[in-house]
């Protein structure tokens, strides 16, 4: 490589000194630094001294910086080894929070300067921004009396509520409309596909101000920017603020950038390089310019009581005058309604233009005459009503209404009683008593005889109850007198007695009537059961002890009365198998079952899925089983054909019915309902008295 040849540097001995060999001169300028007591002078410092602490003696740069794990020791982990749990002891008598040592740890211990500054800031009380000081400054408040208080920029509760519900400013109220988006203001409507749901447009609110100009409804002046000077002219003080939000610019509160957060926002960026956004430490705000700036004085946050109130002194006689004039203001001399007070003066509206009355054309006279007021005293409505002499009927006649149909009571009562009423009450204008007879249907016989209390009971039931009593048991076993009365009542109803059932001594008529009702009910209940029902139940019988037998024989066990046995059972026991032992019932099999057995299903098989109940089962808990009823019916109906059920009799071609055909349902007719009544014999055999009563 080519290297530039350089002259070899002279050795230090060859170096010339500037001073030419004189005593070296060292030029000193400035004052010497004081010797350092503290600070780093390069001496050896042990590790424990190398810790950094702040002014409060707390360690900075906790373990995370030095590679340890005990981050958070400074912030209450407890020790550099980590969190050592403190034994927490607290009891009812010895509460932990009430201990003396409770104050050893305060939150302030763990807060650094930023936190402390924030806490300090929090402590400052601030009123809500919108709070206009009570009664201050006429400069702020508009020139009207009371409504300055309401004229705040704060949202009302209603606005807050609907904002919570999803409304946003400048939206309208109501259902969302489906329209195309108004992206450009030129009104181009895009295709249907771009239709979305939008909030309705906000309505133009009509402000209720007096139109002093003749520019038409809803006109807004062109200059929208500078509104302040227009305010006083165009609007009266009567504007309700929440209607007209678009006009008034809201004074935004420029919040000072939080002193505790990093960085500067875009808005607050002044471009100055002196401010380091990431500087740790409190933001010290020194004035960077010389010269005191005038700070606008904010209205004091604290209300100065009575600052805006100008006390008006009212001399005493004036106040008396005002109250005395109250009575004069009432037209009819009456006090005003509750909650109202008379106005002392007419409402003053300075802006109201006063128009002169129209000029009357000359020579015009009014067609209406004026009644002199003095002739008639003023009459309130109430008084006018009282002075009228009309009653309902005469008013109706005046109005020309037709008489209402209907009779009054006076039609029916006799003349004498009407006169009696008239003398007693003093009213002579009662209609005449006509003494008509009652309308038809009204029974003349209003005498409530005792017979009316005796309840009605069917003769058969009474007879049956009597018969039952004769053979078996009568109710009221414990009260023989009552039983005899019961029997008498039954006999009366059965026809064998004619006399009124007697009333026990000491019983009132009402009680007696109630007892008779009870008897009637008991007779209905305790009448003997017939036929099939009887076979279901047995009554207990007490064995009649022979006279003279000793009572020791009485045992609680009584021989159960032998159940009336099934005739089929009896026949079987006797060995007479045959028609007596055989009975038949129908059952419905399912389609699938028949399919499995390769059998044509009967036509009335329900088209039901796999599982099915075999036979008809009555779901109600009848004392008489449905199948038993069927049995009886079958026995009657199929007397000639024991093998084929009734429905088979009708269709003779039941067998070759194809499997897929199921019963046709005809909505129009229903044979079950339309068919004629079954012969009486059927009914009698089912419901009537059988020969197999017990």
């Amino acid at each position, binding site marked *: 490589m080519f290297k530039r040849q350089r002259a070899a540097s002279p050795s230090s001995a060859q170096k010339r000194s500037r001073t030419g060999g004189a005593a070296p001169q060292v030029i000193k300028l400035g004052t010497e630094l004081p010797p350092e007591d503290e600070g780093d002078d390069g001496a050896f410092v042990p590790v424990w001294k190398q810790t950094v602490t702040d002014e409060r003696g707390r360690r900075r740069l906790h373990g995370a910086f030095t590679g340890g794990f005990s981050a958070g020791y400074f912030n209450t982990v407890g020790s550099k080894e980590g969190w050592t749990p403190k034994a927490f002891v607290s009891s009812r008598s010895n509460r932990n929070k009430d201990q003396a040592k409770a104050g050893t740890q305060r939150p302030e211990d763990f807060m650094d300067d930023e936190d402390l500054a924030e806490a300090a800031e929090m402590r400052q009380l601030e009123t809500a921004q919108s709070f206009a000081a009570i009664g201050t400054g006429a400069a702020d408040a508009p020139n009207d009396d009371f409504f300055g208080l309401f004229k705040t920029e704060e949202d009302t509760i209603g606005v807050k509520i609907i904002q919570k519900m999803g409304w946003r400013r400048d939206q309208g109220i109501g259902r969302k409309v489906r329209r195309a988006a108004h992206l450009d203001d030129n009104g181009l409507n895009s295709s249907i596909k771009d239709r979305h749901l939008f909030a309705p447009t906000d309505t133009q609110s009509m402000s209720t101000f007096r139109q002093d100009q003749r520019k038409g409804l809803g006109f807004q002046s062109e200059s929208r920017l500078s509104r302040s000077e227009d305010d006083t002219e165009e609007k009266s003080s009567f504007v309700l603020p929440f209607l007209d939000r678009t006009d008034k610019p809201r004074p935004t509160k420029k919040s000072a950038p939080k002193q505790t957060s990093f960085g500067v926002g875009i808005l607050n960026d002044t471009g100055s390089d002196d401010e380091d956004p990431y500087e740790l430490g409190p933001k010290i705000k020194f004035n960077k310019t010389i010269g005191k700036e005038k700070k606008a004085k904010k209205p004091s946050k604290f209300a100065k009581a009575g600052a805006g109130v100008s006390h008006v002194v009212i001399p005493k006689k004036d106040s008396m005058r005002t109250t005395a004039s109250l009575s004069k203001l009432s037209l009819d001399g009456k006090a005003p309604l509750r909650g109202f007070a008379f106005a002392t003066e007419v409402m003053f509206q300075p802006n109201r233009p006063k128009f002169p009355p129209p000029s009357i054309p000359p020579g015009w006279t009014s067609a209406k005459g004026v009644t002199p007021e003095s002739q008639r005293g003023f009459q309130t409505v109430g008084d006018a009503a009282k002075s009228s002499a009309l009653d309902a009927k005469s008013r109706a006649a005046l109005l020309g209404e037709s008489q209402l149909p209907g009779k009054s009571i006076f039609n029916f009562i006799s003349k004498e009683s009407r006169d009696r009423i008239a003398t007693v009450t003093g009213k002579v204008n009662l209609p005449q008593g006509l003494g008509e007879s009652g309308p038809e249907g009204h029974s003349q016989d209003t005498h409530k005889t005792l017979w009316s209390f005796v309840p009605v009971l069917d003769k058969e039931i009474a007879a049956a109850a009597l018969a039952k009593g004769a053979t078996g048991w009568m109710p009221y076993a414990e009260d023989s007198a009552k039983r005899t009365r019961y029997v008498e009542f039954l006999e009366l109803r059965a026809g064998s007695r004619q006399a009124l059932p007697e009333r026990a001594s000491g019983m009132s008529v009402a009680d007696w009537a109630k007892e008779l009702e009870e008897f009637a009910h008991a007779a209905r209940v305790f009448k003997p059961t017939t036929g099939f029902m009887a076979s279901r139940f047995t009554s207990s019988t007490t064995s009649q002890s022979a006279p003279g037998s000793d009572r020791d024989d009485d045992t609680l066990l009584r021989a159960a009365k032998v159940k009336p046995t099934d005739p089929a*059972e009896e026949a079987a026991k006797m060995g007479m198998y045959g028609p007596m032992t055989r009975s038949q019932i129908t059952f419905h099999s399912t389609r699938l079952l028949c399919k499995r057995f390769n*059998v044509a299903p009967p036509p009335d098989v329900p088209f039901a899925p796999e599982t099915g109940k075999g*036979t008809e089962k009555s779901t109600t808990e009848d004392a008489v089983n449905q199948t038993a009823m069927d049995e009886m019916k079958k026995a009657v109906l199929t007397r000639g054909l024991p093998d084929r059920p009734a429905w088979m009799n009708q269709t003779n071609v039941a067998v070759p019915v194809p499997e897929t055909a199921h019963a046709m349902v005809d909505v129009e007719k229903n044979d079950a309902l339309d068919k004629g009544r079954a012969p009486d014999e059927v009914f009698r055999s089912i419901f009537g008295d059988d020969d197999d009563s017990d």
Partner: protein
Amino acid sequence: MPPLSFPTTPIARLTGHSGIVHSIAYSSGSSQYILTGSSDRTIRLFNPGKAPPTSTAPSAGLINKYSAHGYEVLSLDVNTANDRFVSTGGDKTVFLWDVQTAQTIKRWTGHAGRVNRGVFGGEDDSVVVSASYDGTVKVWDVKSSHYKPLVTFDEARDSVTDVCVFDAEIVTASVDGRVRSYDLRMGLCSVDAIGYPVTSVGVSKKGTECLLSSLDSTVRLMDRADGTLLKAYRGEGFVNKELKVRSTLGLNDSVVVSGSDDGMVYAWDLLEGDVLHRFRHSEMREVTGKVGVEKPGKKDVVGAVAFCKTRKEWASAGGDGNVVVWGMG
């Protein structure tokens, strides 16, 4: 006319069960095999030809053992194709087994009490009819996978002890003393009152008669058409008052064979009704003459008898766990 001859010689003895053998079933077709179900919860398949009565081998003739029941096995039935059989038991279930794999194909639950009997029925053995202590008779479908029965007959007011299927009719016998015959073609159920609890029912080959055992020590032959009694079979010493004992028709429906409470097996002539033979199951011999009065133990009951359809052979199952096969000798 007395039957030509009646098999009276024990030709095989099937052992191995440790409890009362409740049911026997011959296989279909050539009836080579016998299935036995016992209260020891197992079902065993035997080849009686391989189990002569004199053999001392512990389970001679045993081909297969089927265990799945949780409680005693109460009944067995083999289908005509000989590849499946149904077993029912005290665990309220009805099992459909595959003979080859010895596994259950289907398990039907739904009964509320022990299932006394399960038989194949329907065309092609497509259903299984089961009768249970809970008083219901349920028909289960073999072909589909329904877990519910096709139909349930619950007219019986007490336990249904036996069921038999003949063509499209299901005949059930119940402890309430009734025999109910459900005719699926007609949709009609004929109820015959017997008077005594009926423990077994069987239908003759012609289908016009049915044989009933009842707990009054009588076996009855009834006419199915009108419910009349055709013949009643009793025997001096024939006791059947407490236990469920089965009876069967045999020898082409010419004899009636029934077990009894005390270990005896009786055979009657069907038409005449007189006792032809008496056997003592435990001794494996025919007993002639007067039967001594003994105290029969529980184990002496002969609960099941089965007649082979093809040969003159029949089997009796006893409370001692053995099955004796009787042949012509």
